[in-house]
């Protein structure tokens, strides 16, 4: 087994790459406005990465949403903002330091006054958002659309694409609502064109349509939406869960699709119930997933081991947020790696996979379902707020080409009456599963240590044989586990190590470093246990200098690497303020090391 190598190309100088940000009070529809703008560019063939920040509040408090729009693939948010829509003064004050020289600020001069206190030569664009709303007898929340119209004019983009997005958004609300929303957006567009004819930030025509068998545009998705899509493409029919940010939108999506796609989605009384219901469903033969965040995963810990002991396929998504306890609910962190590695008493096999982007979230979910069933064990998908809730444009998934592998299943025809043993000893430790209801046999699953037929036992020999059988499954699983990928030239003077969602910012940083003449490579872990020992040892033994980048306090991956390989990584860039990494932070650290 060896790492695959992936090339890193610097950006083309002709490429478009700008960041638009909108801010205001919670409850003003900031997110939906940001989503609409992002979609408008995805429909025109651009790549988008959108990131939002919001407090754990429903109304009031500062919300912001930023969309990075580019003619090339973008994988992360950046610090510098080109266009800021400040729906209130607070937005301007909070984000002024992020504005680039000559950045444009769209604001409502009749609501608050702005003067440029910087020497950045900001372009202040006064659009009477509230007055336009009043004039058209529209609702205040439509103010966003006026700002979106003005943005489209500012970058000289195609207004009709935005109008199309608005029509689709309000398709169920009737013609009147659609017309009014488009009208106010158009008014914003026209106001800019009329009053700021000489301000032109960019001139963006839609890119040529993309060739694709399904549709002519990419998808704009969050990691959670990709996981939900992966789940249903992978045959999941049952989803019991309890809401917890940032995992809840998986539950929302599946509940929304339940009728159309034939799913049973249950909002349970707690996470203990969710995980036990999931196990009941999986035991009965239905593909099942549940999802939560760290606090809920604490409650699921007992169920995790139940799946391990009863050899029931179980997929749990743990969307991390900063802990411990309630922590910082709507922000991001990679703080649960050690917890998920060791959760529950005793020893049993498990798989942990941490996708790095939206496309990987889809792939990993499907693979998790297959691994869980083939090896009859729990699989944990670790994501975090950054991936779970950020929107990324991505190629349409080949959901019809998904390969479903259920592993060994005992069929009625093979049976001779009551000889079926749910935990029969086999060469690879995997006993054929049967589902309750199969004629002529009964299926006995047991959380007590058990013999081949599922009867409780305390016999020393059987205990040893059963432990060995369960652990043996890992040996076989190991052979098909995807290996960490190495991005960049193998001989680079510095290797960055990371797992899960730091992938985006690290790849972006690598691009910037390559452009500055500093080659690096990046070893990215998606599958963390069973540990990919050979690949990691081989790559890191060749590394000249290693930098560990993790969104946590305890450098969990560096610790795991040391435990498994003996290699100590001394240089670490750790972040645990709830904010994701920005590529520039990684660039600065690497520059200080080489």
């Amino acid at each position, binding site marked *: 087994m060896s790492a695959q190598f992936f090339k890193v190309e610097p950006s083309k100088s002709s490429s478009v790459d700008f960041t638009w940000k909108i801010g205001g009070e919670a409850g003003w529809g900031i997110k939906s406005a940001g989503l609409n703008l992002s*979609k408008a560019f995805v429909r025109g063939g651009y790549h988008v990465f959108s990131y939002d920040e919001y407090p754990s509040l429903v109304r009031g408090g500062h919300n912001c949403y930023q969309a990075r729009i580019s003619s090339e693939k973008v994988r992360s948010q950046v610090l510098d903002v080109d266009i800021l829509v400040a729906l209130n003064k607070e937005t301007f004050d909070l984000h002024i330091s992020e504005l680039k020289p000559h950045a444009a600020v769209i604001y409502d001069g009749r609501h608050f006054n702005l003067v440029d206190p910087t020497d950045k030569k900001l372009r202040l664009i006064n659009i009477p958002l509230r007055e336009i709303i009043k004039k058209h007898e529209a609702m205040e929340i439509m103010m966003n659309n006026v700002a979106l119209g003005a943005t489209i004019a500012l970058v000289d983009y195609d207004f009709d694409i935005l109008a199309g997005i608005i029509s*689709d958004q309000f398709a169920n609300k009737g013609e009147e609502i659609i017309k009014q929303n488009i009208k106010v957006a158009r008014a914003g567009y026209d106001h800019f064109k009329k009053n700021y004819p000489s301000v032109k930030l960019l001139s963006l025509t839609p890119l040529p349509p993309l060739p694709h068998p*399904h*549709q002519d*545009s990419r*998808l704009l*998705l969050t990691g959670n*939406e990709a996981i939900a*899509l992966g789940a*249903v*493409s992978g*045959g999941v*029919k049952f989803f*019991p869960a309890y809401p917890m940010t940032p995992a809840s939108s998986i539950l929302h999506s599946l509940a929304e*699709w*339940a*009728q*159309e*796609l*034939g*799913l*049973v989605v*249950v909002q*349970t*009384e707690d996470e*203990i*119930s969710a995980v*036990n219901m*999931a196990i*009941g*469903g*999986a*035991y*009965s*033969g*239905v593909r*099942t997933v549940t999802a939560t965040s760290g606090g809920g995963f604490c409650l699921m810990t007992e169920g995790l081991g*139940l799946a391990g002991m009863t050899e029931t396929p179980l997929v749990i998504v743990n969307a991390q947020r900063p802990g411990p306890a309630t922590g910082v609910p709507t922000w991001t962190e990679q703080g649960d790696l050690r917890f998920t590695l060791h959760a529950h008493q005793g020893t049993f096999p498990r798989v942990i996979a941490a996708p790095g982007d939206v496309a990987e979230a889809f792939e990993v979910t499907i693979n998790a379902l297959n691994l869980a069933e083939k090896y009859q064990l729990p699989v944990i998908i670790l994501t975090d707020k950054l991936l779970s809730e950020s929107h990324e444009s991505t190629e349409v998934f080949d*959901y019809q080409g998904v390969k*479903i592998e*259920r592993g060994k299943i005992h069929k009625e025809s093979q049976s001779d*009456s*009551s000889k079926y043993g749910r935990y029969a000893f086999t060469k690879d430790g995997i006993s054929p599963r049967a*589902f*309750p*209801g*199969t*004629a*002529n*046999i*009964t*299926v*006995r*699953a*047991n*959380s007590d240590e058990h013999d081949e*037929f*599922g*009867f*409780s036992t305390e016999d020393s020999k059987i205990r040893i044989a059963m432990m060995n059988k369960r652990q043996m499954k890992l040996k076989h699983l190991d052979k098909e586990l995807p290996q960490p990928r190495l991005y960049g030239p193998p001989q680079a003077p510095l290797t960055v190590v990371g797992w899960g969602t730091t992938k985006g910012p690290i790849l972006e940083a690598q691009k910037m470093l390559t452009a500055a003449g500093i080659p690096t490579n990046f070893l990215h872990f998606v599958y963390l246990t069973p540990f990919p020992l050979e690949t990691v040892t081989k790559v890191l033994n060749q590394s000249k200098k290693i930098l560990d980048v993790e969104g946590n306090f305890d450098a969990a991956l560096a610790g795991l690497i040391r435990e498994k390989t003996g290699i100590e990584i001394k240089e670490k860039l750790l972040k645990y303020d709830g904010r994701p990494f920005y590529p520039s932070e990684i660039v600065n650290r690497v520059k200080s090391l080489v």
Partner: protein
Amino acid sequence: MTDNLSNHNILHKPNWCPGCGNFGILSALKKAFEKLSLPSHKILLVEGIGCHGHMVNFIETNHFEGLHGRPLAVAQGAKLANHDLNVFVISGDGDFLGEGGNHFLHALRRNINLTCLLFNNQRYSLTTGQASPTTEKGDKTKTSPQGLIEEPLNPVALAIANGGTFAARSFSGDILHLTDIIIKAHQHEGLAIVDILQPCISFNKLNTVEYFRKRLYKLEEISNYQADNRLEAYERALEWGDKIPIGVFYRKEKQTYENALLTLTEGPLVSRPLGGIDLEGVLKEYR
């Protein structure tokens, strides 16, 4: 009977204490399965942890013996995945009302078609006799040497008060009555709760066979008791003293959770094909 596992034969000899009420419950359960003509492979028993949970070893049906307090959650999942199965929850007073109390309340809200058998010996017996949520006030146990301060919970009253659609009580010492109640509970479309009074000869010196024989009376023998009046049922359920009623307290027709789900009208989830899903409708939102 359509399979050759028929008589729910015991493969392992029960290792409960001689004289344990569980023997009576096991006999009644087997009789009920026979009378209902349920083949083994169509029955799923979901056990909790406690003396009751050892049932996993003593009767030939499908089993899932899970964790302490969680059988109701596992059973609801199994039933939603395959509603053709006849699913029974085998639980104890500690399991069902202590560790798993929250699941009980919310299962009442859902009304999934399950039969819950609550082996109520008023003790945590497997763990050698601590007080349980149904231990009587003042009773002395290992964990209440001065007499228990707390009041007992009443599962029948809890079920009736919280939307339960079938609430009954029986006695492990009256196998005929218990068999009949299990059959009625199973025939009920919805969540059925059966509180089975059961002496624990090792750790409960108060609620003995004698204690119950003196006090129990049958609701069936009361003329005009229809089990369809919620308030009357509730009042009866609260009766616990010189007289203790057994029988069906309350029964109500109500849509089950499964029947309210359009998805399940096409048959059990487990019978659906896994691949070949069409996502074009869903994907529109993301373009």
